[in-house]
């Protein structure tokens, strides 16, 4: 199920991406957004599995049965953030109204030159966070993800902007863990998405939007093991050309003794789930989960 999600971007071949990039940069954001209407209509009509999952999620978060209009809006938000990648990666930040909330939390860690974890979700736009991070003073997250996904991401980004060079550490090996430690020891920042478990990973079930959902333990275990604070950051799309970037201090398990650690980790994952729920409620069309994750 979760594998299916990560495989999605691959379907768009490099050729299609190049065409969209060319179209977007030639005809501008307004004209290319018009293309999103037929594209979204097509996917709402023909992606029955994703549509079902969208409906399940939206009905929970909106508190009433989701209609076709809601589902279309969900898809349109997703498509908009993907299209906006093109402009953000090409340095066209002036097209956007980007507002920041709570980003002073970064001062605490960057002034101390303390390495930290930046935890996000499959929500809104990563590129907009990247822009904000750069403006805030060279906060550049090294993303941790599975190797296969890292390669896909890199090929997508390179087809948009050949000079883009995302810093990525592939997960799953002992060496990766030692590399993460090195980045943090140099005052760097490690970025991870914590709202989707990959098969085989240790998980924990949390309360989420009135149901139960499995969250990966990995990011939080890592932060506890390496004794680093966790900051939650999300770049959410508000419609039009507006994005809101939220940052908040999520927690720090560095003082927790080994014996009480598992309980403290479980509590922190639940806090993440609770905050994610909060942002899903305030920006319901931004959680890009098109799979049935409820238990």
């Amino acid at each position: 199920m979760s594998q299916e999600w990560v495989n999605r971007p691959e379907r768009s071949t490099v050729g299609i991406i190049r065409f969209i990039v060319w179209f977007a940069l030639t005809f501008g954001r307004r004209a290319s957004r018009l293309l999103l209407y037929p594209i979204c209509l097509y996917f709402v009509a023909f992606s029955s599995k994703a549509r079902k999952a969208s409906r399940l999620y939206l009905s929970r978060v909106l508190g009433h049965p989701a209609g076709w209009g809601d589902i279309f809006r969900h898809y349109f938000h997703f498509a908009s953030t993907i299209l906006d990648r093109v402009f953000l990666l090409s340095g066209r930040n002036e097209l956007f109204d980007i507002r920041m909330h709570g980003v002073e939390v970064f001062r605490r860690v960057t002034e101390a030159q303390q390495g930290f974890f930046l935890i996000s979700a499959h929500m809104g736009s990563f590129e907009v966070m990247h822009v904000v991070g750069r403006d805030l003073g060279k906060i550049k997250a090294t993303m941790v993800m599975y190797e296969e996904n890292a390669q896909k991401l890199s090929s997508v980004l390179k087809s948009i902007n050949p000079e883009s060079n995302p810093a990525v550490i592939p997960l799953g090996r002992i060496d990766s863990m030692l590399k993460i430690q090195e980045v943090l020891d140099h005052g760097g920042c490690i970025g991870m998405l914590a709202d989707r478990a990959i098969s085989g990973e240790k998980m924990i079930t949390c309360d989420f939007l009135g149901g139960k959902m499995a969250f990966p333990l990995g990011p939080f275990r890592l932060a506890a093991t390496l004794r680093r604070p966790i900051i939650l950051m999300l770049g959410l799309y508000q419609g039009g050309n507006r994005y809101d970037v939220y940052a908040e201090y999520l927690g720090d398990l560095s003082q927790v003794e080994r014996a009480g650690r598992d309980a403290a980790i479980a509590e922190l994952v639940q806090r993440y789930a609770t905050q994610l729920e909060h942002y899903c409620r305030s920006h319901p069309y931004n959680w890009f989960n098109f799979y049935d994750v409820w238990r």
Partner: protein
Amino acid sequence: MTAATDKSGFEEELAALIVSSLNLDMKPSDIDPLAPLYGDAGLGLDSIDALELSLTLSKQYGVQLRADDENNSRIFASLRNLAVHIQQCRTK
């Protein structure tokens, strides 16, 4: 489970350290010195456990594991390999 292969004194010390530092739900004597530490077979440690262990080993024995060391998977292949590596490289 059959009786574990006999361990050397140092292997026993290391097994006790692994169990205590990772808070494992087993006795040090349950660890077979030849079974893999890492992955689904054997002890079933994942890469985050391995990281935790490497931090403990560095504190206890002054052995620093490096990310670019190609031998990492060999070092973690079994308790015996790990013991040999530590005895070769320990500074404490």
